[in-house]
């Protein structure tokens, strides 16, 4: 308490540690004050509850299907006729729920909603009502998937088929003509749900683009923004340009299934490969919707916990945009075996290789930022380093798959499964949990137990690699994906993979319980527990309703020398020089590049 004696407008609010200080959580009371709130922070938290529930569902499906695969032959999911239908439903629901309900909204809708306006020094996103609408649109889409799940459960238990079908057995890609005319599962409810979720994603994207364009405070030019905002901006570009194409594709698919319009069904004169083009025109850029905001999180974490200014700011910023734009030109690499012309294949292959360039630029810059830094291995940093490790593996194996001749061999094998899980789980999930741990003190004003969190992070890292690295081996030996059974030579691969999945599940439970314990009994968090210089740390923890009592002074977001460590209770405070510079009006360094 000695450091701050006379709070004034440029100090970190001294009340940040106060348990009962006025903040966004206790700003107003009652369930309605949450349901009709326009506060981006509360909307972010409500997103968190829904998205984490979806993650729990998707994870449960993953556990069930890995359990089926733990041994050769029928174990858990084969039904009475040994038709393995339940397994098909399980991997389809796992994929669809994880992609549409968890991975795509997780970082933008939770962390982005909460942090983006604060990093802009703004009071809210550009369109608060649209923001709330996007939450409810998300909830409506999620309800469709719950219906799909319910229809499957009811059918499995009673044999009754609800309107629309039961469960989902098409895979998350809904390939025609199986989805349009053969499958008995709830394709229309599921695609309807994905259609609706797309609009939630679009509304978030519109909101973020408008916010970043128009709400930046005085002194924050484009290249003075934190890199998390660049990541979200690139993500939003994809969300608004790709998602509408998915919407129209799913609408055509629904019409195909309901009326037989003959666009995609070859029996009616349609073209199933056209469906694949449409679908991947969205769904490949969607991969970058998943990874770009995660990369933004990692840029913040790596710089903060290395105590070094981010290296190559401009390169990282531009590489986000480059990945977003190149991401639109590579969808055909999902279809190398679908009968495209050889010329098309070569073009898509070459452009796919080129995505490696901006991705590698980011990795090199993160590693260079860490070089000669004073690295603190706190939990967010553990996730950050894990991210670099696994994104490198996921990215480099992507180069294997971009090579045409290799892909013919690897297509639809566990090699592909392992590759995209390294990117979607090893990278994106690690960035998400790392970011959650990083911003947890800001969101709730509580500190989690550092040792438990670090233990969970290491356990998750071990479990993840055990689960998926061996799948590279199985895949390269020819183990095809989506199969419920396998020849005897893959027994040990699948056994260890399933053990790894259990370890992952356990570590995620530990992560969750650690958060809950922190919410109930956590130490009070200081305003700036990590010594980061982005604007959200210059507000109290948790922030007041309007985020900042006065608009904060914008400086280089990675000028970490402005902060000095006081104690665990008080965290980091501005140095006397920084305060003097603010008072003298010379605080803005603007020396990014």
């Amino acid at each position, binding site marked *: 308490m000695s450091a701050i004696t006379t709070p004034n407008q440029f100090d970190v609010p001294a009340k940040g540690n106060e348990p009962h200080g006025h903040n966004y959580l206790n700003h107003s009371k009652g369930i309605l004050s949450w349901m009709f709130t326009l506060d981006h922070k509360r909307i972010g938290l409500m997103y968190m509850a829904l998205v984490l529930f979806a993650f729990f569902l998707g994870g449960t499906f993953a556990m069930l299907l890995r359990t089926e695969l733990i041994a050769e032959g029928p174990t858990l999911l084969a039904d009475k006729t040994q038709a393995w239908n339940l397994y098909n439903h399980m991997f389809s629901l796992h994929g669809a729920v994880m992609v549409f309900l968890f991975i795509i909204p997780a970082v933008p809708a939770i962390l982005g909603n909460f942090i983006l306006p604060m990093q802009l020094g703004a009071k809210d996103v550009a369109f608060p009502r649209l923001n709330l609408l996007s939450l409810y649109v998300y909830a409506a889409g999620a309800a469709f998937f719950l219906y799909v799940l319910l229809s499957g459960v009811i059918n499995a238990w009673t044999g009754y088929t609800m309107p629309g079908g039961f469960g989902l057995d098409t895979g998350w890609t809904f390939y025609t003509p199986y989805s349009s005319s053969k499958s008995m599962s709830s394709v229309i409810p599921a695609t309807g749900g994905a259609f609706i979720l797309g609009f939630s994603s679009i509304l978030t994207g*519109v909101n973020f683009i408008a916010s970043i364009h*128009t709400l930046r405070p005085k002194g924050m030019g484009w290249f003075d923004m934190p890199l998390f905002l660049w990541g979200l901006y690139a993500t939003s570009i994809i969300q608004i340009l790709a998602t*509408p*194409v998915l919407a129209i594709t799913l609408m*055509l698919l629904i019409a195909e299934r309901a009326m037989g*319009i*003959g*666009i995609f069904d070859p029996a009616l004169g349609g*073209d199933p490969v056209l469906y694949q083009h449409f679908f991947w025109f969205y769904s490949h850029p969607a991969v970058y919707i998943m990874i770009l905001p995660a990369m933004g999180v990692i840029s913040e974490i790596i710089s903060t916990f290395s105590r070094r200014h981010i290296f190559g700011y401009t390169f990282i910023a531009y590489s986000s945009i480059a990945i977003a734009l190149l991401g639109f030109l590579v969808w055909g690499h999902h279809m190398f075996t679908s009968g495209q012309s050889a010329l098309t294949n070569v073009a898509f292959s070459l452009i796919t290789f080129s995505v490696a360039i901006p991705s590698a630029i980011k990795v090199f810059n993160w590693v260079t930022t860490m070089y000669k830094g004073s690295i603190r291995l706190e939990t967010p940093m553990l996730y950050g380093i894990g991210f670099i490790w696994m994104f490198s593996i996921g990215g480099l194996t992507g180069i294997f798959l971009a090579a045409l001749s290799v892909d013919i061999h690897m297509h639809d094998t566990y090699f592909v499964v392992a590759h995209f899980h390294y990117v979607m789980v090893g990278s994106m999930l690690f960035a998400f949990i790392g970011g959650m741990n990083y911003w947890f003190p800001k969101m709730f004003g509580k500190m989690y137990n550092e040792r438990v969190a670090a233990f969970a992070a290491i356990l998750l890292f071990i479990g993840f690699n055990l689960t998926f690295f061996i799948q590279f081996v199985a895949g390269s030996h020819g183990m095809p994906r989506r199969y419920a059974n396998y020849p005897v030579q893959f027994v040990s691969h699948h056994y260890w993979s399933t053990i790894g999945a259990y370890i992952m599940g356990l570590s995620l439970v530990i992560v969750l319980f650690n958060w809950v314990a922190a919410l109930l009994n956590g130490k009070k968090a200081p305003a700036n527990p990590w010594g980061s210089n982005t604007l959200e740390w210059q507000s109290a923890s948790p922030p007041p309703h309007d985020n900042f009592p006065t608009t904060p002074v914008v400086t280089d977001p990675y000028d970490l020398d402005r902060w000095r460590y006081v104690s665990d209770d008080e965290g980091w405070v501005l140095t006397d020089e920084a305060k003097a510079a603010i008072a003298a009006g010379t605080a803005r360094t603007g020396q990014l590049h």
Partner: protein
Amino acid sequence: MSSISTNLGDPNDGHGHGHGGHAHSHNPFLAHHFDTPEQQFTTGKLGMWVFLGTELLMFGGLFCAYAVYRHNHPEVFMYAHTYLDKWWGAVNTVVLLVSSFTMAWGVRAAQLGQKGLLCVLLVLTLLGGAGFMVIKGIEYKAKWEHHLFPGRLNVYNKDYAGPEKPGEAHDTHGAAGVSHGAAAAQGHDHAHDTGVAGKPVVEHANLATGAEAAPRSEGAETAPQAPKPGEHAEVAAMAKPVDGPKIPVSFFDPNSLGAASDAAKIVPKSGGPAGLAASEAAHGHAAHMAYGDLPARDKVRVNTFFSIYFMMTGLHGVHVVVGMGLIAWILIKGATGIFGPSYYTPVDLVGLYWHLVDLIWIFLFPLLYLIH
């Protein structure tokens, strides 16, 4: 509220007031997270433009499907588009263009705080939207009556099981169908040029030709057709030996489908298949063709044109209805007189949306109705 009553009382006074000190005085329309009304307006406009971008991409998927099918099966589009009434389409284009004009004028009226004029213009715009939908309804009704709805309701669909079996279509339409069929086959362009009144005749003629030829694709072996009089029979005779046996195969032959056979997709743009060339020679006009003139692999794809037509115009119609709802909303708001020089953002944004709806139709009309 004081500024509202000011605007209500005297638009000119509101005008002056707005330009004067509104920016920094308390503005009831300024949300708490914006610094100035200008920032708020810019943000709203940017958001709307971004949203319009997503709308374009959404329609882009349909335009892409259109391009793929028209490129791969030009004859289908040449043949099937004759069912559309280009005169109604042209009238609708004018209706929508005029409503776009009244909308743009309405934005100006809102900026100047001319409440009465704004309301009149918005009502006119609403009427334009309603007129468009009514005409669209007339067109859809004709398609419904002729079993040209998308999917299994389309007489050309393989799974068609409507009340009017394709085989019965001939009997139902009877002599009229045959005689008009002959007239249409000999003078399609003439029948078209007679305008709106002549159109139903052409539709009947085409349906009769198409519906008779269609069942042949599946029923040729079991139910040989009776000889037809005149030109019609000639078409049938021409189609039967060449196309009849092939069509059942083409339903299931992977070589005729999708990307499996690039060679099969490539259709000469000029000259065309023998049937088209013959009709061109006979009538000196290549734009209109009979069902029998279609290449075998295209006969099963006529329903695709109607699928694309209904998906495109249907999605566009939904946007028109949404736009009408938005216009009704700003009409109600505008009637209270809250729009003026200092606040007209909703009118401006709805106007942008309405222009986009108009613009999409301007592309849909020639692509669907005016195929040559």
